[in-house]
């Protein structure tokens, strides 16, 4: 899944470690989400979007997503 996390992080000069700590996850998970290897759960997606003051749709691109990705 495509996301704007990296772009938003760069805008706010935030490291992956700092973002991970703020949203209660690990740096490796943020990396995986950024490169599209892992799809965040609804709760994590909400926490990330809330951290940036945006909605989930603003941060995550659902346009060309299949329904079940983490099989």
């Amino acid at each position, binding site marked *: 899944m495509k996301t704007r996390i990296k772009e938003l992080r760069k805008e706010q000069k935030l490291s992956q470690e700092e973002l991970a*700590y703020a949203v209660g996850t690990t740096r490796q998970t943020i990396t995986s989400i950024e490169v599209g*290897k*892992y799809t965040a*759960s609804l709760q994590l997606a909400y926490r990330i979007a809330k951290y940036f003051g945006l909605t989930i749709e603003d941060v995550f691109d659902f346009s060309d997503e299949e329904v079940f990705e*983490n099989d």
Partner: protein
Amino acid sequence: MTEYRKVLKNRLILLAICTLVSVAIVIIGTLLAGQAETDDGTFADGFIKGFPIGLFSGAFAVMIFFIARCVRALKSENFLKKMYIAENDERKKMIRQSAMGKSFFFTVGFLVVAVTVASFFNNTAITMTLMAVLSAHVLSGVILKLYYFLKY
């Protein structure tokens, strides 16, 4: 974090009990292995006696490491949060679930007990089979975990 602190305190007690049990098994196992030693004993006999001792010595070292981590987390708020995040990270949980499932540690526990009991009764064939099953089970879990870590 208050709930997690309670979890860590309970875990600390459980780890302390398991550490004492491991030490007791290593001491008893060493004494029994020494007594059972004969001049015509084969390599396999020594191996099946030594395997559980080695296993519990390793478990002792791992438990000391986890005790130190728990103590550090209870003393430092920052480390406590980091440990909580690392343990409850959804990606790690998913990998653990995919690679090992919930029954993995129960199966390992049962196999360790079975190996220890079988080695006590000096049944080489059964002990060797159980050791092979235990090793293959743990190895497959580790390989799958590595695979999923690379995949996600």
